[in-house]
């Protein structure tokens, strides 16, 4: 590697954007080159100084008010404060969770419910909000819901199939308490919502996208399901298929 190459790549090194192999190549060059060693040290020093200085600007209050005023009014404006912290942390995009929500609802409100389901998913990604009961054991999570909900959401451990059960949570969708079962795939959280429905016929799964999240929904044995995640659609489909297969296998309901 030449100094010219290293001079550019050392920035990617500082930023952690190199894979291990190339990072080693750059480091090997730098180790044998006093000039590049000095460059790296100087840029590290500068990055540190920049990181410790507050270079951001706060949006003026009147700008916030102008934007607020330009948005259509909603029924529950105070929820905004609940969600205020969402996505402030850079870690949010790194999280992916699966939640399973069980709710009773009427047909016909599908779009609104899906919106609320996505909002609940977003809310769950806030630090400390993902789970109320943390357990990888379905026999711990399922009883936890007893007495908290009017339906008992099916809790299935899919860890062996690549979707780790990480816990459960009470949430609110459509102004009702619902159960959420949370799964994790790599760094991704998936939310699966389950709602009681008057019909008992089976509806095959459909996938939709709202706000960048994939939602896979299906109905079976009197329950509606919504699986929500930032996982790619094909992986979310895999989750849904494995969940349904496991439901059949266990006869659970």
């Amino acid at each position, binding site marked *: 590697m030449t100094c010219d190459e290293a001079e550019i790549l050392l920035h990617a090194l500082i930023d952690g954007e190199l894979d291990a192999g190339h990072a080693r190549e750059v480091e090997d060059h730098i180790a044998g080159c006093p000039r590049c060693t000095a460059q790296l040290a100087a840029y590290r020093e500068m990055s540190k100084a920049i990181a410790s*200085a507050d270079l951001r600007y706060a949006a003026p209050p009147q700008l916030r008010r102008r934007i607020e005023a330009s948005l259509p009014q909603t029924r529950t404006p105070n929820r905004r404060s609940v969600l205020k912290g969402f996505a402030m942390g850079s870690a949010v995009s790194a999280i992916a969770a699966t939640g399973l929500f069980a709710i009773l609802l009427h047909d016909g409100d599908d779009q609104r419910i899906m919106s609320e389901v996505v909002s609940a998913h977003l809310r769950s990604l806030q630090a400390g909000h993902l789970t109320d009961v943390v357990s990888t054991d379905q026999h711990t999570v399922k009883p936890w819901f007893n007495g908290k909900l009017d339906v008992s959401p099916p809790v299935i451990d899919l860890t062996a199939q690549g979707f780790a059960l990480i816990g459960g949570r009470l949430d609110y969708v459509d102004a009702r308490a619902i159960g959420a079962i949370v799964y994790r795939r790599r760094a991704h959280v998936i939310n699966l919502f389950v709602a009681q429905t008057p019909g008992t016929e089976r509806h095959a799964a459909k996938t939709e*996208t709202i706000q960048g999240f994939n939602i896979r929904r299906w109905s079976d044995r009197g329950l509606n399901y919504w699986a929500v995640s930032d996982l790619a659609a094909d992986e979310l489909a895999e989750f849904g298929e494995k969940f349904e297969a496991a439901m059949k296998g266990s006869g659970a309901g």
Partner: protein
Amino acid sequence: MPGRCLQAGRASAFSASAGPQAMPVRFSNDDPGSDHDPGKAQRFRDAALPYLDDAYTLARYLLRDANDAEDAVQECYLRALKHFDSYRGPAIKPWLFAILRNVCRAEFARRASSPAATDDLPDDAEQTPLWRETQETPEAQLLRRRDATTIRRFVIGLDEPFRETFVLREIHNLSYREIADIVEAPVGTVMSRLARARALLRAAWLAEEEPSK
């Protein structure tokens, strides 16, 4: 090119501008009708308003003017709400930034046609060349401590496209891939712009004798 050295997950995007598909940010003035869905407005608030300070910060650095930055951010949020239904992720901050950048570029075009532009810079700062051919003996030169106001001035003094790349990386902590999508350039270009931006900034940092307030 340095681009081939990137992590595998990001290297694929090196091939081209994935921007238009990933971030639909070129808009026409159509369909205001769907803006009256209260659920959508609520989702938009929840998702987008936490980034207001981020958006305002980016606009300040891009436009170098507080009033223009406010106008640009408001316009950005209006456009984002209108097109929120077609938003396909993955993360909302880069999506907002891509919209904001387009708004700011429209402002640049407007300024180009009207010479009287206001500016955050002190009167003489823009004329001062920031980058001088200094002796390449970095080991002998230690960075003097600078306060945030001074560093901001250095950043604002950077020329485009180095300034936007630098701000997206150093202030907003976006990945090279995310920056590449926003500025619609290959990742390798982002990397070389960033290297250049840091060299310029460091030269300015070293060149200025007196820390100014």
